[in-house]
């Protein structure tokens, strides 16, 4: 089942390349949201592969709570652009 995780790492490299190349701040924020979701789904896949419930609970918490920081950062950047 390792090929699933290797394919997910390859999919994770696409937004990393995007955040490296694109200069627009909102494109970087989109790539950040994509990477945050992809990494937490990868944590869930690893927990299912190893049958480890502790990692699974951590993956669920990161997937549900981790994007709150993204929203706060987006508000600060939006206010910077309007001023």
């Amino acid at each position, binding site marked *: 089942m*390792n090929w699933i*995780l*290797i394919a997910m*790492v390859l999919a*994770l490299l696409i937004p*990393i390349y995007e*955040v*490296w190349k694109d*200069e627009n*701040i909102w494109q*970087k*924020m989109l*790539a*950040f949201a994509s*990477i*945050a979701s992809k*990494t*937490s789904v*990868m*944590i869930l896949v*690893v*927990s299912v592969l190893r049958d480890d419930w*502790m*990692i699974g*609970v*951590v*993956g669920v*918490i*990161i997937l549900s*709570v*981790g994007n*709150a*920081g*993204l929203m*706060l*950062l987006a508000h*600060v*950047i939006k*206010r*910077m652009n309007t*001023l």
Partner: protein
Amino acid sequence: MNDSYVYIIIALLPLSALMLMVQVNPYHALVIRGILGAVAALVYAVLGAADVALTEALVGTMLAITLSAVAVRSSLVMRLGILEDGLPNVEDESKTEREQDCPFAHLIADLRASANKHHLRLELVPYADPQSLQRALIEKEVHVTCVQRSPHQESESEDVQPYQTTTRVRRLYEILQTELSSPTTRLTYMTAPSGEKH
């Protein structure tokens, strides 16, 4: 634990850390710091440290990014003191048309462009009269002042620089002297009495 995908996932961590190191714009660096936190949480979870991953995701990514975003936003600012009567009406509907004929709006746009080059944000602070504007510059409430020069200071034939821009910050004076291309202002440097506030 000795799976081959572990090495590939761990290799993502120095990759995102290098991207964070070469970034010069502070706001872009904040976004990449969030990406580094997400990748680090993934690496910790894959290596079996679930508690460290949870702490990294909640504190390292969310709290650190929010606090440093507030710090960057409040410190990277250039406060420009102006007079209220010289202020062009920003809320006007025909703003783009006014910008073309008003030289003061041109000057503000030039100042904003040279500040944006150094990732600074320009904040306009209006004052009622020239005395309070001068006092605000001395008391370090603003970094730069920009006023219209009175016409009797020199002869009318030589009046090609109708505005006077004064700064009390040495580094801002150097930046504006090399980059401000507007011919409508004269730039001077004023030494303020030393103090804590900047």
